[in-house]
């Protein structure tokens, strides 16, 4: 427990420090790199919580895909180093409002909604479909537990999120797809189809 506390404070303080760096640093590439470190620390916090599957997904999705795209865009746009000459205090009221909203939300969450972790977990397993006592006594791995919930109880939401992703993918493709006729393309099947009789004609 003692070691876990040390690790918790280590990772959480690191994530706070690096998220400050995201805002402060003048070079946008530096701020993206510190954003990646924030994601890493969040993933390690998830591992401490025992949600190793979510932590791995966090790294694969956010660090492996999303942040790479950010980095691509920033490097390709060739953004010059921004100078923070204009006063940053100008945004202070708005940031104060947003910050207080988030703080209020967390306050509500922690003091009204949250019950102790263990009872919440048991409650979930008692009242729903998983009535086998063996699964609530023998610890199931993260993936099994997630799968049992996701594909049965939350299947509508699962399919719905899939459809949303599909629509956004189609939108991105239809935005970027130009049909041009002056592009030279290679049709490999046509090349392979050609044989001697169709390519060489004897003229005399």
């Amino acid at each position, binding site marked *: 427990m003692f070691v876990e506390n040390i690790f918790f404070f280590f990772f959480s303080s690191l994530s706070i420090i690096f998220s400050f760096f995201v805002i402060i640093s003048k070079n946008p*590439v530096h701020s993206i790199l510190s954003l990646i470190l924030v994601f890493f620390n969040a993933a390690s916090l998830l591992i401490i919580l025992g949600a190793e599957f979510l932590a*791995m997904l966090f*790294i694969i999705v956010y*660090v*492996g895909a999303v942040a790479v795209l950010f980095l691509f865009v920033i490097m390709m746009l060739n953004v010059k180093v921004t100078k923070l000459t204009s006063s940053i205090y100008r945004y202070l009221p708005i940031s104060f409002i947003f910050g207080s909203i988030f703080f209020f939300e967390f306050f509500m969450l922690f003091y009204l909604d949250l019950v102790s972790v263990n009872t919440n977990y048991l409650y979930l397993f008692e009242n729903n479909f998983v009535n086998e006592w063996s699964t609530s006594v023998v610890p199931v791995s993260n*993936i099994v537990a997630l799968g049992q919930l996701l594909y049965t109880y939350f299947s509508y939401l699962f399919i719905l999120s899939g459809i949303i992703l599909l629509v956004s993918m189609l939108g991105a493709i239809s935005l970027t797809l130009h049909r041009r006729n002056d592009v030279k393309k*290679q049709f*490999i099947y046509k090349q392979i189809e050609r044989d001697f009789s169709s390519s060489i004609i004897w003229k005399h």
Partner: protein
Amino acid sequence: MVYYLILILNIVLKSLALIVPLLIGVAYLTLLERKVMASMHQRRGPNVVGFFGMLQAFADGLKLFVKETILPSSANTLIFILAPIITFLISLFVWAVIPFNDNSVFVDINVGVLFILAISSLGVYGIITSGWSSNSKWSFLGSLRSAAQMISYEVSIGIIILCVLLCSGSLNLSEIVESQRKVWYILPLFPLFIMFFISGLAETNRSPFDLPEAEAELVSGYSTEYSAMGFALFFLGEYANMILMSTTVTIYFLGGWLSPMEFIPFTFVPGFFWFGLKTTAILFLFIWVRAAFPRYRYDQLMRLGWKVFLPFSLGWLLFISGILLGFDWLI
């Protein structure tokens, strides 16, 4: 307090026992590559330093170590120095979850497959940042090519791994190997093995997909501006990734440490020997491909990734899950 000290010492010794053989393996892999390529070209290869050139790799390493590190004046110095270190560290990091034998693994986590995917997807960062920070057109183009290539082939690799996971019913690497006790997955999933191997070639930027360092077009891709230890770290990371890719092929398709037959002459041989033998065979294939095939063009590479491998692996995923569901073989 003493307990924690012993724990930390244990971890340090274990990781040294993992890293040092890996680096020696990388050194001899480069020697193997040069020897095999040489005999395929009917040359002799390195034969001066040491017996049969056995010390050639160490001599090269020493040479790189004593050379001068050049920092380009227009480079972003911090990221320029960090990029090769990141590449090297990430290539070492993945080895924590690889099982070499029954019960001989550094950490045996539930999500080993995902760990390998996650950490190897971080390898892109070393390459992108090195290309950007050296502030040179060749490096930048090389790094963009490399990143696009690695991301596109990760998709097909992920789907092929899903097929293996459906058959084994676990994300733990040791359990994946144990589930192949009756038949190695190379037999029922042979087309997927071929596709995984080719995607692995593309993922590790090996020939015939070595476009990031196409000498004819980009001087040497993202590592153009690097000299001495920076270059050496990139080199080590690349070859460690090659060995890692062949060990994953071994674990997913060739049955890891399991012996090919379960009777007397085969069962005397210890498991880690089979593991090493299979990995070396796959590494030989990597080198063989390099000696035999010409380089792909970039659009052909992308076409192969997105239009051939992705639909084919998706189709296989549906086929396999249909068969497993239909015969009620799901674990």
